[in-house]
């Protein structure tokens, strides 16, 4: 026989179940916009039925409903997909961002990029080739050279600054990872405590933990496994970051780059020197963008260094081979200059690092000397030649060379040199005259052993004269030559120098000319940026698709919630109504029965 009041208990449970369900609908609606929230569902089950024996058989009477669990709707498979792909997205986006900045550094194709500056430099040399005697054309060459140096060094500086920025971001990201790890650890503890009963019902804490993993996997790829206590074990490339027992902090260390001398931050396990490597995610993006010799800031610094080296070595080589209007030779166009202008092809530069080549690059300061700077620009391949006429055809041969710049304007100066010989017919001293033999300078004595060289200063030129000692020299023999500003219209070396920039190929530039080297570098940069953008875009589409999958399981649908709301509201109402009915029945039973005869 069942109890008279048994039905009331059943309906109390019904009211309670509908209330809890309605509460959950409210929770879902409230958190519809919460990041990482997964919709929760109330799992109802029937309570244990009551066996009632009556008549010939027993039967089971339902006793109502019980809330067996509240669980979140979540697809772990999709989560794992998301964590895997979001690392690649982080990597792609970081590369896209930084390569975009490198594109900004080189600013091609514009009127201000290195290519334009190189073109102008070339034009200046060509103009000098045509107007070799024009000091305006020389000034232009020098100033265009300064522009080339500025363009290369400015780009190098920007790339170095970018490395510093990347280091700063690396620090921030390591802090993020540490923060996430510590939070994950505390969530692990809470969840394992709550779920010690064995059911995965720490819904909201689990949501929060998954959000943290979402964030972590964007920064670095991570291997996430769940142990039997509900703890997440997170590994980054073999390093256990978090498990149920604790978490591992990471830190950065500082070293100096051996090539360029800038600061490099590397990630290690805190308190040790064990390095942590990253295989994907933002961290790998940052490290690649800094260190890669192919598409990182360092790779582009290498390219600028190669160009600087080319200018200092191979361009200078041609310049050193030419002569200035002051007949000086072995002058560098680029470099430090100084009394002994160093040859950058020699052992002098043997210890240069890649960074040194960029640092050293500048237009030779000697060329800015106001008295003889411009004269040192080597536009011609041969020095002034002086024809010497001698009065005694069977006498010794004389060689004359000059250095310095002629100050006599457009009028040449005729010089006569008269020799004195000693008893053994060695030339012992000379005199010279610049007015056709009217006045003679004081005798300049030579030094034994003969022949010796006589230096005379005439109109800005240092004339070095040497007369071979020959038996046929007679005391009083004269030699004549004429001094002038020289063959300054010769621009053949300027042509060779301009060819160095556009035509000549060099093995140090990978068999290309400087022009081609730079333009193919620009092209490569474009392709790399395009690839990074494509990777980021594709990855974004993939991640979006996975997001949609995840949403389709875990997301809150308002219509659904409203429908549920009505369902549970009506359920509650119906249960209440039945209680009313039962109340009436009991009322009838208690107050309406057994009154006969009252």
């Amino acid at each position, binding site marked *: 026989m069942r109890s008279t009041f048994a039905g009331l208990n059943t309906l109390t449970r019904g009211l309670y179940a509908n209330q809890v369900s309605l509460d959950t609908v409210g929770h879902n609606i409230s958190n519809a916009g919460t990041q990482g929230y997964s919709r929760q569902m109330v799992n109802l089950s029937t309570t244990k039925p009551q066996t009632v024996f009556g008549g010939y058989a027993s039967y089971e009477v339902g006793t109502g409903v019980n809330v067996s669990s509240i669980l979140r709707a979540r697809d772990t498979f999709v989560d794992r997909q998301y964590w895997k792909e979001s690392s690649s997205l982080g990597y792609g986006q970081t590369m896209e961002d930084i390569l975009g900045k490198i594109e900004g550094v080189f600013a091609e194709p514009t009127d201000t990029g290195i290519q334009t500056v190189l073109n102008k430099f070339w*034009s200046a040399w060509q103009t000098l080739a*045509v107007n070799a005697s024009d000091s305006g054309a020389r000034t232009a060459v020098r100033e265009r050279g300064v522009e080339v140096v500025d363009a290369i060094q400015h780009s190098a500086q920007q790339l170095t600054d970018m490395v510093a920025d990347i280091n700063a971001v690396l620090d921030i990201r390591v802090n993020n990872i540490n923060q996430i790890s510590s939070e994950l650890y505390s969530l692990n503890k809470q969840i394992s405590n709550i779920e010690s009963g064995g059911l995965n019902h720490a819904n909201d804490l689990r949501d929060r933990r998954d959000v943290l993993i979402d964030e972590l996997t964007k920064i670095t790829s991570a291997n996430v496994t769940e142990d039997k206590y509900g703890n997440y074990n997170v590994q980054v490339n073999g390093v256990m970051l978090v498990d149920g027992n604790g978490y591992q902090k990471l830190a950065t260390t500082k070293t100096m780059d051996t090539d360029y001398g800038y600061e490099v931050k590397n990630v290690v396990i805190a308190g040790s020197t064990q390095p942590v490597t990253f295989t994907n995610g933002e961290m790998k993006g940052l490290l690649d963008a800094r260190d890669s010799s192919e598409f990182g800031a360092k790779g582009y610094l290498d390219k600028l260094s190669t160009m600087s080296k080319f200018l200092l070595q191979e361009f200078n080589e041609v310049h050193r081979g030419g002569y200035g209007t002051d007949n000086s030779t072995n002058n560098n166009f680029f470099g430090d200059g100084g009394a002994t202008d160093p040859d950058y092809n020699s052992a002098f530069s043997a210890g240069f690092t890649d960074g040194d080549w960029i640092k050293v690059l500048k237009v030779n300061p000697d060329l800015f000397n106001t008295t003889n700077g411009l004269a040192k620009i080597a536009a011609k391949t041969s020095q002034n030649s002086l024809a010497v006429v001698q009065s005694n055809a069977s006498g010794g041969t004389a060689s004359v060379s000059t250095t310095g710049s002629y100050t006599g304007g457009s009028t040449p100066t005729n010089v006569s040199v008269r020799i004195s010989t000693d008893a053994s017919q060695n030339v012992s001293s000379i005199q010279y005259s610049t007015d056709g033999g009217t006045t003679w300078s004081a005798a300049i004595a030579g030094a034994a052993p003969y022949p010796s060289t006589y230096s005379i200063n005439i109109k800005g030129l240092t004339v070095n004269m040497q007369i071979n000692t020959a038996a046929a020299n007679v005391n009083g023999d004269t030699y004549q030559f004429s001094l002038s500003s020289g063959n300054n*219209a010769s621009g053949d070396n300027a042509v060779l120098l301009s060819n160095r920039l556009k035509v000549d190929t060099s093995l140090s530039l990978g068999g290309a000319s400087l022009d081609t080297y730079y*333009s193919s570098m*620009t092209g490569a940069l474009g392709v790399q940026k395009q690839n990074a953008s494509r990777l980021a875009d594709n990855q974004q589409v993939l991640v979006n698709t996975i997001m949609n999958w995840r949403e389709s399981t875990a997301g809150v649908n308002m219509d659904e919630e409203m429908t549920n709301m009505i369902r549970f509201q009506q359920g509650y109402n119906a249960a209440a109504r039945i209680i009313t009915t039962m109340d009436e029945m009991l009322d009838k039973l208690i107050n309406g029965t057994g009154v006969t005869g009252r």
Partner: protein
Amino acid sequence: MRITNNTITYNFLTSLNKSLERQNKIQEQLSDGKMLHRPSDDPVKTIRSLRFNSNLVQNEQFTQNLKDAKSWMETTDNAMSDLSSIMINIKELVVQASNGTNPQDAVQTIGKSVDNLINQIVTLGNTKIGDRYVFSGQMDKTQPFTRVGDTITYHGDTSKISMPIQPGSATPTQDSVNLTGADVFGAGGNTILNHLLEIKQHLDAGAITDQNWLATTGLDYLDTDHASVLQSQTELGTRMSAYEMALNMMEKQNVVITGDVAANEDLDIPKAIIDFKNSENIYKTALSVGARIMPPSLVDFLR
């Protein structure tokens, strides 16, 4: 597939952003009419753009070199024409002086005229373009001819000035623009001038023997010398016409390269505007559709 409100919002935002990105890109292109703003816009076109612009600079520079060369040669040519007419003038005077009918003082007067004409030739020999002497060889800052009494000295050299008009090293046999003193006035840069001085001395003397010398040797000198002046002028003329042709070619190439540059990086404006309108429409449609599908849910219909 189960669709949630967040799915709709998120997807809507993503596609709205994409549409804006596309508009932004077209906007950037339309604002300056160029398709390329960074290498990644189109790496291949970027390399071509750099190469074309480099070619353009090269072409413009060689055109400028050609123009410089032309003006140099024109100056030289004018001087040579003047020189030629002075030579003819001298010849006429010498013919007049050597016909055997002139008294000595008349011949001497002619000598004075010839003397003046020789001075004129020296002045022509010192012709300058800017501050460069055209007949000095590579010693263009040195005055090539000086006359002291009856000696004329050449101070220049015999080197050629090259004005390159194509990539490659300077080749004086092909790209030189100047005539040196030796080219114009024979060996030493003063052979012809010495002949003229000799003629002038005979005119100054004016005796019958001198007149006979003038009629034979003198006139021979003048004929061969004039012929040699004409020959060097002709050589110059040939070089000039070659340069003229090169200049024409360069200018034509310039048009071609400019066209290439434009075809490579200039924007097809009508197409871009249509694209822009198109993306604007898509954007607007997305907004209005978004405004309609986003708000409603069952909530709106429950009372």
